[in-house]
């Protein structure tokens, strides 16, 4: 009996040691070649499987607020306008579009001869049915807030629609390009009502077949697709696979042809093996740490500057996301419309210490940092804790489960009662426009929790006015100027510790082409091809 224990013990020890020696050899050979040398592996059949990290919530684009559900919907549905690879607005179901100077009237000329999957023709009436549904304040749809500004949608002729807004809104064309603006067949809307979330019918290149929530979702090729596309793929199956390890195993064994996201820790070690290619590109997702500017000591700009100087952003990126990010150089990411580059706060401990001294906090202070409890965000917060320790700020890291977190932040009615001191968060402005990257996060009192996401409780008249000016016009030049000024002011006022812009990162088998992630993290596969 005792001998058995001893033997067992030695056995485990041996395994542990073998594991270690593997790791040290594994570290050296990563990232040697660049992947082109790999032979293209063989693909059986034309059915593609995509493993994703979460479950789909809804197939009704008007009632969806997660990027992942949009990714699946976009295989089956299309909007009047959409985004290209760099988040520029491009025409899709609308041939062309125009707006008046006040940004109150938008006219769309529609593609002709397009049919929904159920045979219903796509025309001005269909657009009106969709926009009326979206702008109806009683609809209780999640995305109604984006479109409530629409006063009236008028059918001009069979292929022309005119949308009138109740007030000027310069970012409206980007709102139309948001996946929430995708068109559902009016017949399906009538037939299923809000159950349309289980029966998506659109105009896209793939037709909905089956959805077992939590298990898989399948769409098959649309034989009558109006637009040219790679017609090489017969069907697409999405499989939600939350466990990072299983997702990677699926790609390695060929059970999945495409996975995302790829955990950054393993990106290098799976790249260029088994016909796998890992690709990353800059996203529009920003990572920041908001500081409650209404609270001591963060009401002192010198403290906020000191914190920005004390954090080494390059090290942050290496430690937290293994290099798959870029340092932030404005409050919005470079791929966001109207981005203007600012001068980065370079890591400088001496300067940080000096600023702390000037602010009267040479001895530092104690504070708390809130954030999510997933391993990436805990890692980031722990890193910030280590960095701020260098200027004597003792940070207590409080990782919270998402329900608790939103309760703690967004149930505060009176900003003076907010317990929030520092908050580590991220933001992906899905309209791709500066407006949605700035206004909900730093747009003054109206954006304070619980209404919106201004966790820095930042309220500066100059910025508020600039945001308003930018929205009151459709003139691109004027909007650009206003957002440039706003970004400058925000950068100088440092309501956040500016950290990083994430990369999107996916893994695919090397026979797949024409499939990529948009900077907002949603999937684009309209032109997917299998290359043998």
């Amino acid at each position, binding site marked *: 009996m005792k001998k058995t224990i001893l033997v067992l013990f030695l056995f485990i020890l041996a395994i*542990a040691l073998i594991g*270690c020696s593997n790791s040290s050899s594994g570290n050296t050979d990563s990232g040697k070649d660049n992947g082109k040398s790999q032979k293209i592996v063989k693909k059986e059949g034309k059915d593609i499987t995509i493993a994703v990290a979460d479950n789909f919530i809804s197939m009704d684009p008007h009632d969806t607020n997660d990027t992942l559900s949009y990714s699946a919907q976009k295989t089956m549905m299309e909007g009047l306008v959409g985004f290209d690879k760099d988040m520029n607005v491009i025409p899709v179901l609308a041939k062309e579009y125009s707006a008046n100077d006040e940004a109150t009237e938008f006219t769309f000329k529609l593609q002709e001869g397009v049919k929904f999957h159920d045979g219903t023709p796509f025309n001005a009436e269909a657009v009106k049915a969709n926009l009326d549904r979206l702008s109806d304040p009683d609809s209780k749809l999640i995305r109604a807030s984006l479109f409530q500004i629409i006063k009236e949608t008028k059918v001009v002729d069979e292929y022309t629609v005119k949308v009138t807004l109740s007030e000027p809104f310069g970012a409206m064309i980007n709102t139309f390009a948001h996946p929430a603006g995708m068109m559902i067949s009016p017949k399906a809307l009538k037939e299923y009502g809000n159950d349309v979330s289980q029966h998506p019918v659109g105009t896209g290149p793939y037709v909905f077949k089956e959805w077992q929530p939590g298990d898989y979702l399948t769409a098959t090729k649309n034989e009558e697709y109006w637009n040219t596309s790679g017609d090489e793929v017969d069907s697409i199956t999405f499989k939600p696979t939350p466990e990072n*390890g299983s997702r990677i195993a699926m790609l390695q064994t060929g059970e999945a042809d495409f996975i995302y996201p790829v955990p950054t*820790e393993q990106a290098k070690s799976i790249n260029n093996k088994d016909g796998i290619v890992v690709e990353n590109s800059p996203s529009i997702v920003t990572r920041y740490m908001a500081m409650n500017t209404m609270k001591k000591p963060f009401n002192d700009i010198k403290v906020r500057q000191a914190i920005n100087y004390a954090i080494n952003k390059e090290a942050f990126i290496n*430690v937290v996301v293994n290099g798959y990010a870029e340092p932030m150089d404005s409050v919005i990411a470079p791929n966001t419309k109207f981005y203007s580059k600012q001068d980065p706060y370079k890591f400088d401990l001496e300067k940080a210490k000096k600023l702390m001294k000037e602010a009267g906090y040479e001895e530092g202070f104690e504070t708390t940092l809130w954030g999510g409890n997933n391993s990436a965000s805990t890692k980031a917060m*722990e*890193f910030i804790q280590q960095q701020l320790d260098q200027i004597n700020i003792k940070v207590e890291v409080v*990782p919270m489960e998402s329900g608790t977190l939103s309760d703690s932040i967004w149930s505060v009615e009176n900003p003076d009662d907010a317990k929030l001191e520092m908050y580590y968060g991220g933001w992906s402005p899905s309209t791709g426009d500066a407006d949605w990257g700035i206004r909900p996060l730093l747009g003054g009192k109206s954006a304070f929790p619980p209404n919106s996401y201004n966790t820095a409780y930042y309220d500066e008249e100059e910025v508020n006015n600039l945001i308003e000016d930018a929205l009151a016009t459709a003139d691109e030049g004027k909007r650009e100027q206003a957002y440039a000024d706003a970004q400058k002011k925000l950068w100088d006022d440092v309501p956040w510790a500016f950290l990083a812009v994430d990369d999107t990162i996916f893994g695919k088998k090397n026979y797949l082409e024409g499939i990529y992630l948009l900077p907002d993290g949603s999937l684009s596969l309209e032109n997917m091809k299998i290359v043998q």
Partner: protein
Amino acid sequence: MSQAAELTTDQTLSSPEVKKSTPLRGFWRKFRKQRLALVSGVFIVLLLGVAAIGPAIAPYTIDQPDYANVLQGPSLEHLAGTDTYGRDIFSRIIGGARISLFVGLLSVFLGAVVGTFLGLISGFYGKWLDSIIMRICDVLFAFPGILLAIGIIAILGPGLENVIIAVAIFNIPSFARIVRSSAISIKSTVYVEATKSIGAVNARIIWKHIFPGTVSSIIVYITMRIGTAILTAASLSFLGLGAQPPSPEWGAMLSNGRDYLNTAPHVTIFPGLAIFITVLAFNLLGDGLRDALDPKIKE
């Protein structure tokens, strides 16, 4: 030769004292034969020593990040490699020994004190008091330990203090049960009857005459439970409910490394080994103690 003779005479001379076998001597004689338990005991004493002086002998500062050397494999410079932030894992394991042992010992001790008290009064007084206490224990027993602990943490909030409380609470019923059964059998022995008949008050009977009889089973059970307690505390920290960063608690270290299982397994292997060996040592020691203290096992 003559020396040996001297020795034997020495022994015979002092033999009257040796033969007056006290319980402690008898225990030691039996325990000495449990080699594995002895080794475990020595290991635990060493570990306690490490926990006591901890950071002083660690080669690096526990919380000192070194971003130029993250996720390094084991080497002479870093015996167990470095973690995500470039901190020396070996030093952190040494630092974490104090936390893990403290949590394990204190939580079991607290549970033992409360459980023993409940078990004694339950066994001694019997009737409705016994029923109430034992039914409550049944309720607590119905939950799997870790689930009960998670439930308690959910009410109290995360943190090491609350982990100690949670683990203590789920230890209470086991101690209460064991002590109760000993108390019941001791209660009906002749010497307790005799004490009763000369008019000793209940408190005195419980404390002076019944409690000492239960001590051996309590000690054995404490050593057995410490292993489980350390494991539970580590599990809770792994789930993010226990020790908060940057604490080098072993479970928290494991959780820190789980993203790197494929690429840098040493980050999890070494804290895992530390937990494994410590828990094994406590369990082997517990086994040895049980064999040594059990009067039914013949020499």
